[in-house]
């Protein structure tokens, strides 16, 4: 199958997936025991208020009419309004999604820069001290609960050493005296664009602990995945030939072997990136990070279905496109992979 045909087919499937997700979430929202009209009014709704809200929200219309209205709004880019906060969900996402993206991307950067070199060296020096140590790091990273690790790191780096902040995206002194002017919502980018270097440094410092806590799982996974594929690749004949030709070990490891060994790791990293978009909940709560995880947790606790539906759709879009991107990337990097 040609690449563009494959892409078109996958995009058509993506539309189908999104429609299915929208139908399922919409139906679940109507089936679960909760009354959006009552939630809209507030914690002590009166029957008159509920009746009025039901009319205003169109909940008195047949289910298919409600769904069509919902889809029509979606096509206009309107993700709806939260029944708890009465605020447009798109506006909320503008605040929370970039915060989570920044955290997750920084975490992924850590996973790549720490996990891949350690995995490569671990695979190259099998059963050596470095291998044993990095395996220990990998197992710890994969198995350690993030909420526990996060609290320990806070206790050590904030409580005992005082080196790093407890949480939040920036220190309150920044909010008070050098506020970040929001352009993209990514503080690292916005502070560079506006030349707010004090806030840039502070944002970076605030990212370290939560991003590392979030990245530990991905670091562990990357080390293990890279190590095992490196071990396989290093036994290939072309590596033996390269060694026989006297190529430097660094070239063999990082240029020849890693190119083939990296592919499964990239898939794992890609999927853990999307998973982290909503999987960062615990880290966000511990580090008071105002991200998507915190937002959707509150929505779930409040049975705020418009928000849950919108976040589910947005995350589905990410899943679909990153999966497609990874498949194409694999095909581009590995000639053995065929599309179709």
């Amino acid at each position, binding site marked *: 199958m040609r690449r563009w045909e494959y892409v078109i087919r996958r995009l058509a499937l993506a539309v189908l997936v999104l429609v299915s997700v929208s139908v399922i979430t919409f139906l679940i929202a109507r089936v679960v025991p909760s009354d959006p009209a009552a939630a809209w009014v507030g914690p002590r709704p009166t029957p008159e208020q509920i009746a009025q809200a039901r009319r205003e929200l169109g909940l008195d219309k047949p289910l298919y009419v409600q769904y069509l209205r919902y889809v029509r709004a979606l096509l206009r880019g309107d993700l709806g309004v939260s029944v708890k906060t009465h605020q447009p969900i798109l506006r909320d996402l503008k605040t929370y999604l970039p915060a989570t993206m920044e955290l997750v991307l920084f975490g992924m950067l850590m996973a790549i820069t720490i996990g891949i070199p350690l995995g490569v060296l671990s695979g190259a020096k099998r059963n050596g001290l470095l291998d044993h140590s990095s395996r220990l790091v990998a197992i710890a990273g994969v198995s350690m609960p993030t909420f526990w690790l996060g609290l320990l790191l806070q206790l050590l780096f904030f409580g005992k050493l005082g080196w790093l902040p407890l949480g939040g995206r920036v220190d309150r002194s920044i909010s008070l005296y050098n506020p970040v002017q929001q352009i993209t919502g990514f503080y690292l980018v916005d502070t560079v664009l*506006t030349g707010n270097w004090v806030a840039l440094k502070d944002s970076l410092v605030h990212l370290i602990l939560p991003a590392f806590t979030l990245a530990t799982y991905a670091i562990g996974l990357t080390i293990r995945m890279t190590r095992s594929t490196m071990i396989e690749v290093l036994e290939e004949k072309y590596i033996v030939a390269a060694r026989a030709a006297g190529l430097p070990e660094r070239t063999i490891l990082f240029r020849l072997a890693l190119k083939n060994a990296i592919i499964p790791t990239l898939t794992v990293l890609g999927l853990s990136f999307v998973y982290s978009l909503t999987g960062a909940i615990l880290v966000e709560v511990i580090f008071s990070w105002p991200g998507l995880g915190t937002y959707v947790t509150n929505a779930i606790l409040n049975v705020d279905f418009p928000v849950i539906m919108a976040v589910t759709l*947005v995350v589905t879009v990410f899943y679909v496109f990153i999966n497609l991107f990874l498949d194409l990337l694999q095909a581009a990097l590995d000639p053995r992979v065929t599309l179709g």
Partner: protein
Amino acid sequence: MRGKFQIFALLSLLVVPVLLLAQCAPAAPPAPTEAPPTPVEVPPTPVPPPPKENVAVYAHVTTFPDIDPSVSFSNDSAVTSNAYETLVWYNPPGSAEVLRPGLAERWESNADATEWTFTLRQGVKFHDGTELNAEAVKQAIGRTMSLGLGAAYIWDPVEEIIAVDDYTVQFKLKYPAPLDLIAASGYGAWIFSPACVEAQGEKASEWFNEGHDCGSGPYMVESYERGQRLIMKKFADYWGGWQPGQFDRVVFEVVEDPVVRQQMIEAGEADVTYELPRENLDSLDARPDVTVYTNPSFQNLVGLFNVRKPPLDNPKVRQALSYAFPYQQFIESVMEGYAVQAHGPVPTGMWGYSKDLFQYSYDLDKAKALLAEAGYPDGGFELLFTYATGDMDEQQVGELWKAELARLNINLTVQGMAWEAQWDLAKSDPMKAQDVFVMYWWPDYVSPYSFLFNMFHCEEEILFNLGYYCNPTFDEMIDRANELSGSDRAEAERLFIEAQKILIEDAASMFFYDVANTHILRSDIKGYVDNPAYPHVVFFYQLSR
């Protein structure tokens, strides 16, 4: 050619999420109405902190769902109470008077409390520079009523609001009601500048929630990083004036994790917080730099008995169950002493509360005797106890009670449910619903009627009377007391107390305990007094350092 296509295809795929992100990228926060937005190209010069600025930090447990003063009906009152004012304020328990003047200097009602006249304070400015007058009061309350959200229903008795002159506003009511108490509510009773709201048009609610206000309170909302931090600065023209030591700015940090809040207060990163693990409070209070303030709140935990469904339709069974809960043991061991056993449904310290009301105590022998009288000498029935999932205190009440009831051969199923589902089940057929509905109650405006009417008045359509109790004598008594609340509060109080006697005698509910309010402050903060009428509100204007 193929390589170029690959790159193009990959880039095109990347474009989609990037576009999505671009769509989701935050817009620049709206600039204040007077000042144009700062151009992006010009890097802002970092401003060093003013040397003498006095900043207070409140590590707050939750986000602020809605800071629109007409709609706010939640923890956002921590913010609204500092930005807005009410006509009247409710005083903390123990004060000489129940109410004190707010934006109104004085108020009076006619003999049957159907006409109320408030005389406004002069020289009060809103944050937009306009002046408080009777028309502003009329329009502010009018907006709250017409939106019909949040606590707007507290104004239900109002038929008409008349601006008699610039500083006199009159309320004509449909029926007698304590409008002074209603006007002192921490929800839905805020007065704001109508001009300020009108300037925002239909988007006013969004504008408020982007970090703006239209109040007359001592602090103005300066910025709001949603889910993270809200900053208020002092309103220089505040009618009350300013004294040295008062705070120039107040920062509300949203910190959901209690361990983190504790670390903040210990490290001096926060000046005020609440809801820390109870077992840590004694050791915190022992520190010289931290003070723990504890007093009764106006919130209590009740377990409404399903009085329609056997065997709880029999008052003797309900009384027996009331004797089977180890109140003191629970309060001492689980609540660590941070609660008191309730004397009926009106919480400690509120008007309408009486310490002379009967309290059931833990007495299994008495429980057995009552069960025998009711025809259940050997127990032998099952009950369903529902509570809101996630509330550990409610769950532990259930577990402990279950153990005690097992000794009477009664099987209590303790079922945690999402609030919505718990409420939905209770609103269905009472014969198929739960047997005991556990929930907290707190007043919208401070009146025993809020507790007695909502939870125990006969209801045609089930709403909050989730034990389905219905007693016309009781209804008549509390309705009359409510009518008198505005004109003869002493008589109203007497009637409310008498009505509670009926409920207690009927054992319409388990009255487990009145929750204590616990706030933790840095010791160098002066002037703190908790006012349970405004839960977890810290009036920063009253504090200094």
